[in-house]
């Protein structure tokens, strides 16, 4: 057991730090919250992705033959951590690089690899992911969006929901039903769809916070060439599962830094806010809660590190990802509540501290729902890790 970095890991980190110091763009005042500046914000993010690409930091865990860096999972984690520590801009290419690209590498044709991988790495093409539907949330296999083959084109009709980036994406990894007579899991196909194809409508979906974090996508007689099938026809379930376990392999290294920053910001408040006439940080009751937040976060870091170390050996993301997901989603909710308690009446003000606390408190409710509810994660752990029989 050695939790220190190996010399090569250290070298990777040091080079990255040096690179970041030289290449990190200045902060932008643009943001998606302001429709007027959203376009400028996206251009800014595209520039950043291009810079990462030019620096050799795009798709860092992809095999070298596909333009990646062939980095280990641990280096990937270091990468995410360093970006977060440097407060780097978000990466618009995460769905392409983390989810779509690796899946194309695994099951795509040579043509598909040539056509799509470069654009993912350079950030020139932004991807979104069309899995969930209004009636297929936790139960993905129930999806109803249909694709019928006519000649060498699929005609797609239906609706997707919870699609991040759909409003700016160039391409979509879409799962559709191609065989309605087969059993639920067996009639699905994965399509790589150009978002400019006629018949696609994207509508922003407002969250309870009032922000538009997701979209709905509507497909009306959208024609997709048969060459855009990823994997085989009616093998879409397998492709989707591959994509999702690639996503889970991420394991939340970047999240840790984000949560840690939140806690640090709460501590800043706890030093300024008063409780019983003294700084809140000195209040024994709040100290207990803040200490628990600190412990939970530290355990999250350690769980993640341990899982990464495991993944680094086996190379295969397993159901352990469910443990991480379950842990961080509930941790983030607990800690958001603790933040509210520290802030007292200030907690509710939308203008206080740029409204980050309210946003955080409301946003985190989605954590135990998105990417598999906590209930589904517990089922997965019980059944696939502990070997208990299916419950339904």
């Amino acid at each position, binding site marked *: 057991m050695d939790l220190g970095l190996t010399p090569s890991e250290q070298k990777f980190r040091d080079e990255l730090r040096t690179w970041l110091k030289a290449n990190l763009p200045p902060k932008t005042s643009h943001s998606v919250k302001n429709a007027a500046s959203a376009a400028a914000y996206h251009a800014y993010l595209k520039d950043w992705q291009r810079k990462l690409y030019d620096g050799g930091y795009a798709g860092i865990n992809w095999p070298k033959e596909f333009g990646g860096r062939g980095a280990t999972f641990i280096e990937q984690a270091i990468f995410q951590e360093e970006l977060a520590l440097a407060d780097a801009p978000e990466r618009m290419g995460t769905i392409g690089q983390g989810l779509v690209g690796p899946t194309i590498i695994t099951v795509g044709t040579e043509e598909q690899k040539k056509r799509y991988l470069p654009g993912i790495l350079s950030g020139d093409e932004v991807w979104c992911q069309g899995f*969930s539907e*209004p*009636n*297929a*949330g*936790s*139960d993905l296999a*129930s999806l109803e969006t249909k694709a019928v083959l006519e000649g060498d084109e699929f005609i797609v009709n239906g609706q997707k*929901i*919870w699609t991040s980036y759909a409003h700016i994406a160039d391409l979509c990894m879409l799962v559709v039903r191609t065989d309605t007579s087969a059993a639920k899991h067996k009639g699905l196909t994965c399509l790589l769809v150009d978002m400019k194809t006629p018949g696609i409508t994207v509508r922003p*979906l*407002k*969250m*309870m916070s*009032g922000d538009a974090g997701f979209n709905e996508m509507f497909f009306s007689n959208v024609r997709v060439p048969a060459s855009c099938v990823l994997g085989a026809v009616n093998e879409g379930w397998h492709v989707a599962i591959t994509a999702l376990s690639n996503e889970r392999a991420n394991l939340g290294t970047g999240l840790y830094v984000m949560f840690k920053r939140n806690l640090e910001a709460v501590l800043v408040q706890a030093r300024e*806010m*008063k409780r019983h*006439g003294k700084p809140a940080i000195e209040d024994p*009751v709040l100290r207990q809660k803040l200490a628990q937040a600190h412990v939970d976060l530290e355990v999250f870091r350690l769980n993640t590190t341990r899982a990464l170390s495991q993944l680094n050996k086996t190379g295969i993301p397993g159901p352990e990802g469910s443990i991480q997901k379950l842990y961080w989603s509930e941790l983030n*909710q607990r800690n958001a*509540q603790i933040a*509210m*308690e520290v802030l*007292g*009446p*200030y*907690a*509710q*003000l*939308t*203008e206080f501290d740029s409204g980050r606390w*309210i946003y955080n*408190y*409301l946003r985190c*409710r*989605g954590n*135990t*729902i*998105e990417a598999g*509810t*906590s*209930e589904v994660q*517990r089922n997965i752990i019980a059944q696939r890790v502990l070997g208990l029989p299916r*419950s*339904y």
Partner: protein
Amino acid sequence: MEFDLSKPQKLLQKSARDVFARECPAKRVRELMATDTALDAKLWSTVADQGWLGIHLDESHGGLGLGTVDLAVVAEEMGRACFPGPFLGTVWAATLLSAAGGKSKFLEPLTTGAAKGAVALLEADGSWNPDHVQLKATAAGGGYKLTGRKAFVSDANVADTIVCVARGADGLVLLAVSAKDPGVKITPTSALDQTRKLADVTFEGVSVAADGVIATGEAARKALDHSLQVATLVTAADMLGGMQWILADSVEYAKTRQQFGKVIGSFQAVQHMCADMLLWTESSRSAIYYAAWALGAEPASAASAIANAKVYVSDASREVANRGVQVHGGIGFTWEHDLQLYYKRSKASEILFGDATYHREQVAALAFDA
């Protein structure tokens, strides 16, 4: 012994529920919360006409002469409807003026609906403990001069009358001012719950004449404490109505939403969430109804009953709201679903008059230090 609403109280409940169902559906709530005031003049006069603004106050004080249980019944229905507007501020102010003797000229307009009210208590430290009030009231003539800032004042943005809790030479001073008085500056603040607005209130050397002096010293503290208990009851009952809505809506959703080929309400995990929601809601009801009764019938137990209720309901209401979102899944997390209205109001109410931690300390002081 009869631990249940009386027949007239059940009629009142039904009548309130019908009024809000008719005149305050979710669509109307959304329209109102998008305004600066969240106030609907017609809806407000309906409430005023029913006498609900002074339902628990003596007839001699312009009230209906019913009790705090009746007030809780109305507040619960307001919570269930997410009723927007300055009910809390107005009732709090009226209760305070009544508790201080009921002689103030400011009282009657509040109970008739002619004026809206607010009580300015909190300051920059955000403490609900009146001991921490620092805003200065300097004796001047037969009245006072007020200088300082109050924060998180419920309904101040539409209030005609603001009762300011200030510190004079001999302890607390309660001073009623008109929102239009020179030197009174009201700045709305934007907050989570858009159905009940908050504002900062600044007093820049505001002169309060003798008829604005509601109470001082011990009498002021006593009236304030009682009014805080009543206002906390209104808030807790409002939360109960919200919990009831969330529970009913979640159970309904669980009965129809299908996943994995079954309605989700047949999954044990969902069933158990709903069972806990019921347990918390019904336990809150017990605590709140008892507090409402004690506030009228057993004043010696009132402080403790209210603190108990606010401890329990603050946590229970948050958990019910959280489970409500979880049972709904993604849709419960959207702007378009009405759950968000209740979710936010619940959170704001958790904070109002002190959260569970604050009231646990009150409970400890009352139960352990006596």
